[in-house]
């Protein structure tokens, strides 16, 4: 286990390093002069020149990258061109909001998707099974932003039950979380169904039935426990999806998360914010993937990591 862990952490380090190169490269790959962009449209040429020297943009690329990496490691992500606030502070509060939204959505998705998938497998071939399959295909085809708009139209505008946008109290999280969860529900239900079908086909399930255990124990204890393990990987993958979809969901509900921040920054070409947000999202995604793999190995004694 330990060598595996060391290798995975080293790989994580490499991924993060590659991401930092990518994020650094954004600045050099965009068309136009970054110094002029940062200085603003009405800056005089000598101001642009002064800024270029101040930012180190007159140095060779590898020197710039070295400095950039040094700053990132010490937690300095620069200042937003628009708000002049330190990017790191902005990101910290935004990340909290995003994490809250993603966790609630994942909880919703599990609470709905897992029972749906498991029951569909247990009652395979019934009307319930086909209903669940249909719903999960529909869920996988649902554009997140449209679902969000429809939910706002119905629950906020027509019924007036829930707020349309913002982030103030618990009820504000309901609609964004449900919207974000829709796609995950579909894939969790689908995976749960197929894992459960596999598990129900194993010999130990037949043995359990043969020795006269009641169906509830066979399904709940013998099959379900083993079906859950592959599901951990899918739930981990969902996190990556949630990060992506959350940019859209956050925009629909004006939820002050990293996704909304990133989209706004791209529209206004606020480079330091774009770089910081991309770095943060990529890093957390890589970290979650590592955690999921480790969790997977801990849960399933058949998987030996060497």
């Amino acid at each position: 286990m330990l060598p595996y862990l060391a290798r995975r952490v080293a790989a994580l380090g490499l991924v993060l390093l590659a991401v930092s190169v990518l994020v650094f490269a954004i600045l050099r790959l965009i068309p136009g002069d970054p110094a002029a962009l940062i200085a603003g449209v009405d800056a005089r040429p000598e101001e642009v020149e002064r800024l270029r020297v101040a930012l180190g943009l007159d140095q060779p690329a590898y020197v710039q990258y070295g400095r950039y990496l040094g700053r990132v490691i010490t937690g300095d992500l620069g200042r937003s061109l628009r708000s002049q606030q330190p990017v790191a502070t902005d990101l910290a509060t935004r990340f909290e909001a995003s994490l809250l939204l993603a966790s609630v959505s994942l909880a919703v998705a599990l609470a709905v998707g897992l029972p749906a998938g498991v029951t569909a497998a247990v009652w395979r071939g019934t009307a319930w099974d086909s209903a669940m399959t249909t719903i999960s295909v529909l869920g996988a085809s649902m554009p997140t932003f449209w679902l969000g708009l429809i939910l706002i139209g119905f629950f906020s505008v027509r019924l007036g039950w829930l707020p349309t946008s913002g982030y103030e109290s618990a009820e504000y999280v309901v609609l964004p979380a449900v919207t974000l969860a829709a796609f995950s529900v579909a894939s969790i239900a689908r995976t749960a169904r197929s894992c459960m079908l596999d598990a129900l086909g194993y010999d130990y399930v037949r043995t359990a039935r043969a020795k006269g255990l009641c169906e509830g124990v066979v399904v709940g204890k013998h099959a379900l426990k083993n079906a859950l393990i592959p599901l951990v990987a899918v739930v981990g993958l969902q996190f990556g999806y949630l990060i992506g979809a959350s940019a859209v969901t956050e925009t629909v509900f004006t939820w002050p998360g990293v996704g909304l921040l990133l989209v706004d920054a791209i529209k206004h070409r606020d480079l330091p914010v774009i770089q910081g947000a991309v770095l943060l999202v990529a890093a957390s995604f890589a970290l979650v993937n590592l955690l999921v793999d480790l969790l997977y190995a801990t849960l399933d004694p058949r998987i030996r990591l060497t």
Partner: protein
Amino acid sequence: MNGVPPARRLLRHRAGVVGFVITTLFVLVSLAGPALVSEQPLATNFRAILKPPSWAHWFGTDELGRDILSRVVHGARISLELVLSAVLGALLAGGGLGIWAGFRGGYVEVLTMRAIDLLLALPGFLIALVTITILGVGTVNLIIAVGIYSIPAFARIGHAAALILRPVEFVQAAISQGATDLRVLLRHVLPNVLSPLFVQASLRMATALLLASSLSFLGLGVQPPMPEWGAMLANGRSYLSTSPHVVLFPGLAIMLVTLGFNLLGDGLRDVFDPRLRP
């Protein structure tokens, strides 16, 4: 089941047939539709603003009095062009890269597949956003972003298939007869990789459409006044309380077409590549 030709097996796959019908309808509408609707998608009419669906305007009108049916139909053409070029581009680039890497082996393979692994180690949506940041907003850049997002999936399939085929006799025989790499790849490897690649392409069309319309919705893709479905939703958002029909129809269109691609892809996978079945 095995003796039955694939086309007939697809016909027996109920969900696959539904997907095929929806996809065919979508293609027909995007090809012939613009000629059939009488209203122009960009023609404004300030005497008919935000009208609900009626006989004159089946899907109603938007905030500038434009006919929503006409916009949805013209949007089908845009969506078809978007997903087709993005997915075919990714199929060629990713599939080609993967097959070549798997066939050549050595450092070419290591470097290529590590790069693909790196792409997979990042959230796909983020890659699309970074691409747009670098290239700028616009329709062509949107296609490139969606294409890059789809490349890793094709690369892995191509790579896996090439690895399996490389040691097989007929490939080795061709190599030993002095056939060039290109000839071996095109004549012997490619025909055997096509079916998993096309199954993947059909499923990728669904994600590509969702991604492209999401980015347009965010204002980072096709720009208004072009009748792209995602961009139409972004506009209609402001009129949600008074005129919900403005967001209803473009969204339904996205969902229906995505559903069609998903069902068709599932059907094709079950018929041509049962091993991939989850």
